[in-house]
């Protein structure tokens, strides 16, 4: 009973933490983009607009929740919940420090990949149920993209698992106590980062919600709180892939001098900034070019990377 209570408490803490993180990420993105674009970004609410996000959240909460007349109602209503839950579940196994982890599963990597791929189901549900052609196009694009990019993503993680000899995220971090795996797996890290960017639909791979083509993509019909859930999930997913990259390749919370969580967040936020940098610099690919890039570029490369790592481990490991 007591361990269950502790776990419940921990998950609530994680939820609160995620809410704050998302707000901060949105604020960060707005500020970063603003400075990329020689503007200031939010400046009015609070110091340098730091309370802007609270104002925005309140506004969105008070908005009318519109359900289109021709929408498939229940699917339409559950999609944002599902997308949010799948984004949230991933955090339960990510080790923020040796002790700050809700549940250290022995199949942690598998679990994270499993729950995050639920997102694609939710996006398809949203796109289909909205009964809007733009949403449908966005949903189908998202499915094609996310499922395709999952393959190089997983293939680029496998060498790390082989090096650590475990699927548990905490064990993988511990295995990097001498040096981070990025030194052994530079190509793997690059492949992971690229496929992860596509996984979370960020520029240059943001075609499912390409606003200049599909207006908003799968979430076009959503308003108010339901829209916020998509928005939340998007930023959470971005944070997840960065946290995962930090855990798998950059040694997670390991690092000299500073306390463990600080190292974890430093590494994660560095990657978050890289993703933001990419978003505010690059144009967007077209769907067929995107698929080409995955199946003809990333997939063969990640296979080669996997085989070479395996051979290296057999002969030198």
């Amino acid at each position, binding site marked *: 009973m007591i361990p269950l209570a502790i776990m419940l408490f921990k998950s609530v803490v994680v939820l609160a933490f995620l809410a704050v993180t998302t707000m901060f990420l949105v604020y960060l993105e707005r500020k970063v*983009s603003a400075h*990329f*674009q*020689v*503007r200031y970004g939010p400046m009015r609410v609070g110091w340098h607009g730091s309370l802007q996000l609270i104002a925005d959240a309140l506004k969105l909460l008070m908005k009318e929740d519109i359900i289109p007349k021709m929408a498939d109602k229940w699917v339409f209503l559950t999609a944002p919940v599902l997308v949010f839950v799948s984004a949230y579940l991933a955090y339960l196994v990510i080790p923020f420090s040796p002790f700050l982890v809700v549940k250290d599963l022995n199949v942690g990597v598998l679990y994270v990949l499993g729950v995050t791929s639920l997102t694609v189901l939710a996006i398809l549900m949203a796109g289909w149920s909205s009964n809007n*052609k*733009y949403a449908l*196009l966005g949903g189908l694009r998202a499915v094609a993209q996310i499922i395709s990019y999952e393959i190089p993503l997983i293939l680029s993680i496998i060498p790390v698992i082989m090096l650590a000899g475990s699927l548990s995220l905490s064990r993988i971090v511990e295995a990097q106590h001498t040096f981070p795996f990025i030194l052994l797996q530079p190509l793997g890290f690059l492949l992971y980062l690229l496929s992860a960017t596509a996984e979370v639909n960020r*520029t*240059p791979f*943001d*075609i499912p919600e*390409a*606003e*200049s*083509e*599909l*207006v908003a993509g799968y979430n076009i019909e959503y308003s108010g709180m339901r829209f916020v859930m998509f928005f939340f999930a998007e930023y959470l997913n971005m944070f997840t892939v960065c946290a995962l990259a930090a855990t798998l390749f950059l040694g997670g919370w390991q690092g000299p001098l500073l306390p463990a969580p600080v190292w974890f967040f430093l590494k994660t936020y560095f990657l978050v900034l890289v993703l933001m940098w990419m978003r*505010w*610099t*690059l*144009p*967007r*690919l*077209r*769907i*067929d*070019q995107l698929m080409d890039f995955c199946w003809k570029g990333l997939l063969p490369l990640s296979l080669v990377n996997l085989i070479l790592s395996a051979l290296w481990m057999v002969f030198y490991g």
Partner: protein
Amino acid sequence: MTELKTEEYYLSMGPQHPSTHGVLRLLLKLDGEVILQATPDMGYIHRGLEKIAENRLYLQIIPFTDRLDYLSSMSNNLAYVLAVEKLANIAVPPRVEYLRVIMAELNRIASHLIWLGTLALDLGAITPFLYCFREREQVLDLFEMSAGARLTYNYMRFGGVARDVSTEFIKGTADFIKKFGSKITEYEALLTNNPIFLARTKQVGIITPKQAIGYGLSGPLLRASGIKYDLRRALPYSIYEKFSFDIPTGELGDCWDRYIVRIREMRESIKIIDQALAGLPAGDFKAKVPLNLKLPAGETYVPIESPRGEFGFYIVSNGTNKPYRLKIRAPSFCNLSIISNLLKGWKVADVVAILGTFDIVLGEVDR
């Protein structure tokens, strides 16, 4: 196993859509993402300017021309006053000619900046949009200094311009063009050789020279297809003969060529403004022309090279103070006529790239 059945469907793109640049509606027949048929539908902001003009004095029509291609009002003004001046045989003081060229070229820069920003935006790059607007603001400041307005300038008059420019304007313009070249380099650093940008624009939406001429395309679209035809050279108006500048052309007629032609045109505009500023004579900024101008019976058509192509007014006068018939030859309208032919076989994402490089302004398509 039963065979999987696929269906074609219609997607109504616009009139409210972020990438149709106004209120153009494209009815797309799609097979998945591939376009089988595209039917453009215009007229959402048709104001009947040609009809209204028949009931207005010649002078009263100048503000209406601002509202045609609202991104290049100076060029519209210029086309109109040139046509009226030709019919009425009004001599223009030399200072005015120089001022008009400066304004028209500054306007070309401002208009191309909007085009560049929105093209990048359509292709998913948001940052160049704001860079372009940063420089456009400076041009608008210059216009505000001279014409008093930032969008609809209403600056040209028959035989002159509305008011003379100040020395600050001349200094500001000189400053601007001195710095602007490096800004273009900045935009190009973001786009020109970016592999994603190349993938999205190279070999996309190719217009052959034959097609371009057949469909009556003009301006950068025609030149991107490799035809060296610029009205500033071919049928010189105002004092463009006095200036030396190149006519940039493309090779293939794809989206990238249309992009690079406009980029290089901005650099040519800098050259022209530079020469015009150097040669700007002192003197009157206005000839004596009656407000209630009566034009002799007759007809005229003076085409000019607006940022979007051949812009001209065909005026038929019956000797009164109002035009008997005023036809507006709008480049966006003519350029757009190729679109349903061109879009076939491309993907939804290419629609925005192709439309983006067309640089249409619905104000002059619908008139």
